[in-house]
């Protein structure tokens, strides 16, 4: 039976797709996102990371302590380029 529960909503990834990639050797969240884009969408992992980390733990047998969270980077929520540009006076 196809496991089509969605784990990463922004990038539309099913649990099956995530599990496949972990089994192929992407054994940390950072490694996994680089190949299948989980956590690279608009939410930047804020909705999916916890669930995906659980899948990595289950398949690799690693503990929570052995699995670093992905690195947090700005902006904390999506921000329009025109708003980010505000205050930049270099009109060249």
């Amino acid at each position, binding site marked *: 039976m196809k496991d089509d529960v969605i784990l990463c909503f922004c990038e539309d990834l099913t649990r099956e797709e995530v599990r496949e990639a972990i089994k192929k050797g*992407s054994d940390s969240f950072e490694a996994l996102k680089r190949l299948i884009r989980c956590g690279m969408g608009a939410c930047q992992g804020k909705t999916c990371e916890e669930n995906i980390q659980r899948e990595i733990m289950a398949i690799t047998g690693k503990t929570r302590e052995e699995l670093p969270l992905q690195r947090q980077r700005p902006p904390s929520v*999506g921000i*329009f380029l*025109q708003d*980010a*540009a505000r205050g930049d006076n*270099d*009109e*060249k």
Partner: protein
Amino acid sequence: MMKNSAEVVIIGGGVVGCAIAYNLAKMGCTDVVVLEKEYLTAGATGRCGAGIRQQWGTEMNCKLSKASMDTFEVLNEMLEYPVDIELKQNGYLILAYEEKEIEQFKKNISLQNRLGIDSRLISPEEAREIVPHLNIDGLLGAAFCGRDGHANPFHVTQAYADAAKRLGVEIYTYTSCMDIEREGDQITGVVTDKGKIKTSKVVNAAGGYSDLIGNMVGLELPVFSERHQIMVTEPVNPLQGPMVISFYHHFYCQQVPHGAFIMGQGDPNEPKGHNIGHSWQFLQELSGKIVRTFPVLKDLRVVRQWSGLYNITPDSQPILCEAPEVPGFYMAIGFSGHGFMIAPITGVVMAEMILGKEVSMPVHKLDLGRFERGELVLEPSVV
């Protein structure tokens, strides 16, 4: 279980290390280990813009990038990689805002054309035909080559790594090279945090950390690292064909096939070092440049900014050679911000060099000794 000996040990699981490993194995040397302290593409490769341009100002870079583009075009089939490497060849559009840039581009283009690269100088209006959302205020002209483009750096690296593994190469992730052992001037082994590997040949492909690997064999390499920041937007429908870059404003901006815009800029005041943090000034300054150059992008949301290390040499050209003082110590380092686009040919020439074959490109000019001899291969056109 980790191997305790290998013919060649490569330090660094970026695109360069993986491309060298694959080419060694393809040429028959399969007893190869790649050491990566984190996961594949953890370094500059997984943080880069992955642009591939043949529009360079030195014969060396034109030749290396053209040969590499020839390979990128067939990489999926060559490496039998099931996922698309997302090569998008809609060109590089290089903007000129100063008369002296136009003069430089003219020189570059005549060199490029002589070497078989189909680039040309175009007017601001022609530039706007290629990129309709480009604001051409103040633009004097642009250089364009339609066969340039960009690819997905994660999949390119994984493609090399998977192909290398199928040929017998071992890749150990989360394994750090801590030291290199020698007896007399001969290399005898590599010490990792998971054990020792006996070897007489080591390849330094450690990107931004190549200086530290050099220190392990007593070399002070003429390279330094420098943070470069980059950011990405939410995905939208296809809008922009080419990679657009400006040396004057120090920025580049592309739309990847997935739909996101990826853009970055160099900061002339960035201090040397291994910092890969992020700054709000970058976000603000680059957003300003982008909104002025591409007004319609103002309503796009930035979702992430990050950074990675350029590994820079005094002439902004890589060092590709065996160290004269340390036989068996090879290096492919100092790519100065354009190592992704020449990785395919770098993999080939390094494998040839290591196996004592005739080297198929004139890279002997990229040796370590050129700095002392004063024979720099100065590249005028870098971001």
